[in-house]
């Protein structure tokens, strides 16, 4: 149900915090200039009436952002997606590319707390932003977050390929709505496909993590 998924709370961030590859290429990007980093040649300030379009590249451009609490400085080709940067350059392979078009949620990360499909936003667009991936969810000592522990306890995973994205969508949901009821949980993960069929276990896990359900 693509329409439902697009309208779901979990996906709102796709429209707000990020821009798609296509809109970027059309030159209507907005986030970069506001970030105050000078990655390209020409920059238009936010709200500027002048149609001065930020242009990156064609060569690699330096970007800087916060990743799992630490500052990252890296040069990326402007066409690089956040997902590819994470996986191929920074070796954070928890996020998965499954559909490569924002319809399955397996690449979900948080950008400034919101769930974002990292396959569908450019790495340059997270300049100056806070990115959190599944690797940043457990403590530095490796202790699982309560949500992760709830996933383990409720067996909310089978093959596990959707799991990092699923966990991140749930994390974003809980930050937005600490006590979601079942319809809210279902809506929160409506953009995350699990082919093994763990949805009910995920509901139970989120309920446990939000203090609404017992252990199992």
């Amino acid at each position: 149900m693509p329409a439902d998924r697009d309208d779901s709370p979990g996906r709102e961030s796709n429209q707000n915090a990020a821009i798609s590859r296509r809109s970027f290429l059309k030159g209507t990007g907005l986030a970069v200039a506001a970030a105050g980093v000078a990655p390209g040649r020409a920059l238009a300030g936010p709200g500027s009436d002048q149609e001065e379009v930020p242009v990156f590249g064609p060569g690699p451009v330096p970007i800087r952002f916060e990743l799992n609490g630490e500052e990252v400085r890296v040069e990326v080709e402007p066409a690089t997606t956040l997902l590819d940067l994470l996986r191929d350059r920074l070796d954070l392979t928890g996020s998965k590319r499954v559909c490569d078009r924002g319809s399955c949620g397996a690449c979900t990360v948080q950008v400034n707390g919101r769930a974002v499909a990292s396959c569908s936003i450019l790495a340059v667009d997270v300049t100056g932003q806070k990115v959190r991936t599944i690797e940043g969810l457990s403590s530095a000592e490796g202790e699982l977050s309560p949500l992760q522990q709830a996933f383990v306890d409720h067996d909310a995973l089978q093959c596990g390929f959707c799991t990092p994205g699923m966990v991140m969508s749930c994390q974003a949901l809980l930050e937005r709505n600490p006590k979601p009821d079942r319809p809210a949980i279902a809506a929160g993960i409506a953009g995350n496909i699990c082919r093994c069929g763990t949805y009910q276990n995920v509901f139970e896990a989120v309920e446990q993590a939000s203090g609404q359900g017992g252990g199992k």
Partner: protein
Amino acid sequence: MSRDPQTITIKVGFGDQVRELVVTIGEGDIPPYQVGDRHDEVGQRRNRVDAVAKVTGRARYTYDRKGAGMLYGKMLRSPHANANIRSVDLSKALTMPGVKAALDFVEVFKDRSARYAGCSVAAVAAETEAQAEAALDAIVVDYQVLPFAVTTEAAMAEAAPQTGRGDDRNVSARGLRDGESAADFLARIADQDQAVQEAMKGQTVVSGRFSTSVQTHSALETHGVVCDWDGDNLLCYCSTQGTFGVRRDATASPQLRARNARVVAEYVGGGFGAKFGLGREGVAGALLAKRAGRPVRLMLDRREEHVDGGNRPDSFHDLSMAVGRDGKIVALKARNWGTPGNGSGGAGARNQAYYAIPLVDKVELNVRTNAGGARAFRAPGYPQGIFALESLMDMAADAIGLDPLEFRRRNDPHPIRIHEYDLGAERAQWQKRRNRNPGAGSDPIKRGMGMAATEWFNPGGGGASCLVRIMRDGTVEVRNGAQDIGTGTRTVMGMVVAEELGLRIDQVETFIGDTRDPQGPGSGGSTTIGSLTPAARLAGYRAAEQLLGLVAGQTGWKAEDLRLRGGMVVRKDGGRLPREMSFAQACALIADEAIEVTEKHPMVGSGRNASANYEGFADTNSGLQFAEVEVDTETGKVRVLRVVAVQDSGKYLNPKTAESQIRGGVIQGVSYALFERRIMDRHQGHMLNADLENYRVVGALETPEIDVVLVDVANGKNNTSVMGLGEPPTIATAAAIANAVANAIGARVTSLPITPRKVLEALAAKGRKR
């Protein structure tokens, strides 16, 4: 210790259905888990051992593997639904930036045919994915484009273009004559079975035509490999459900000429039947790595996975069933056809199943089309065939005025399922939730409940070994080279060993998915657990025996009086030992570094008569599913509210993961019932919905509440008494939903998926009949 076959008496069954059985068990085997056994670990709800790796993103799948200097492989695919390849020109591609190797599949696979849009024809490896994609555009292929047929109907038509190779005919069936069309054949054999024709006379006969759509596996991790060579030795990370099969393919490949191959699949992002064998993508990945002298990752993208990663054939059924006045089925006549695409397998649909049907006249046709080939898919042939059979069962019950549950019970010979009707009816509130007046009332939202049965047959086979290693420091390793595709195999393998060693699952380390470790089965036919856990348990038992032997030697206690339990050496009879000895203290007695025991799945008999299984309580496992639906008769939209799944599967070694698997099977069944279908463009020959928003699968918003009822059976067919559970829970769901829809609206949708349009059409047809 004796290694001769032993004849023993065991207690098998469940609930009040318990009986003693005299069985001969395999050489060196130990008695199966039986009624009355008490376990500390087995049968407990345990967390999956790899759950932490999966929730932290640390689990490394094939797709996550990376080698130094790794290249990205990509395949070029035919844009034509049917073509012969005259030539492939790689010369320009080889000069493109970053390109390190390229393959012409005519040369590699000696195959000039491209019989479906999306058939692979060439491959490249380059420094970046973008460079590889750009290089594909530079490959020049000269195609001889041929006419095609991409749907079952089109390929069966009288003047259909040839869809296959050489002399292959589009339609194959037993008894089909040369030059005879499918329609003529079906007409000629319509009444071929005189016994069935005779038996049907004077009985109540119900008939129907049913159909299902092509379903793609859509595992989230696509097919693919990461390959690296060390001289002639291949290291192949592969997203597979058969590590040893892939290894065999690699070493047998005339293209690769590998002296040895090590296949690794520690984590696999789903399989569902489509991931056996190395495949063209695997050969291409390995060969590109060999030619480039660097590691190569070649994973399919989502579109490729849909068009070339396998699927469940569609199906069409003409069924007739005759039922006597006593409510007993007299005969079944079935004509089926469907397409396995351009694959090598058949399209068989199983609908002569479960019930005592004295006479069956069944003819099946396979129809080759210009579409991606079918592969095994979770209970091959069953969900489609059972949808048709169980729809007809409800129609028959209706025709003779019997409750559908009662009608099934009267015809059900299964020794376990026969006891599940009451259990399921009570849990589902069958009497209360059935709609007494289907379709009646002014509210446009109608509710209904339907049911259907399931059955499967796999207590496992031979061909599995397990290594248990108890180290002097008390560490325990359990190793097998087969894979866990998300089923929980790894966890139950560890649990049965932990039980023998008196430990908890978190006190043993499990290793899986590496062909350097002992052999294991491919995960197909729900065989894995029944093949592997008896070997693992036996290895654990023998390792414990050795450890207790050391204890006895050192203390003077009698080994046969001892066992391991709760992390201690204890007396079997519960009595006190002169002093306490922990498992760790016992391990310190090991003179070498470790006790190592490898055991195979025990067999009875030898040679051709060898059997991996014993006589048990029942040869098959069974179940029932009840679906409650809500149908909006104005929009045609169906919501599945609740599914009750009653399932037996031998001994439940880990009820927690078993329940997950049943829930998952139900969810895939809901998806199959309501959403999934491959849509082919009849004019261009392409799959139109090769993505994950137009090829819809169930999401969280559409998932019903699933109530699982586990029926634990000491089956006795192997030493862990277990039966496979991958397939059975997805078989009955679509049929139960279809019956629930009919119960809600008083009109039957006879085609899957049950889309709003089909619901509205069924309602309109009912209106016309009035």
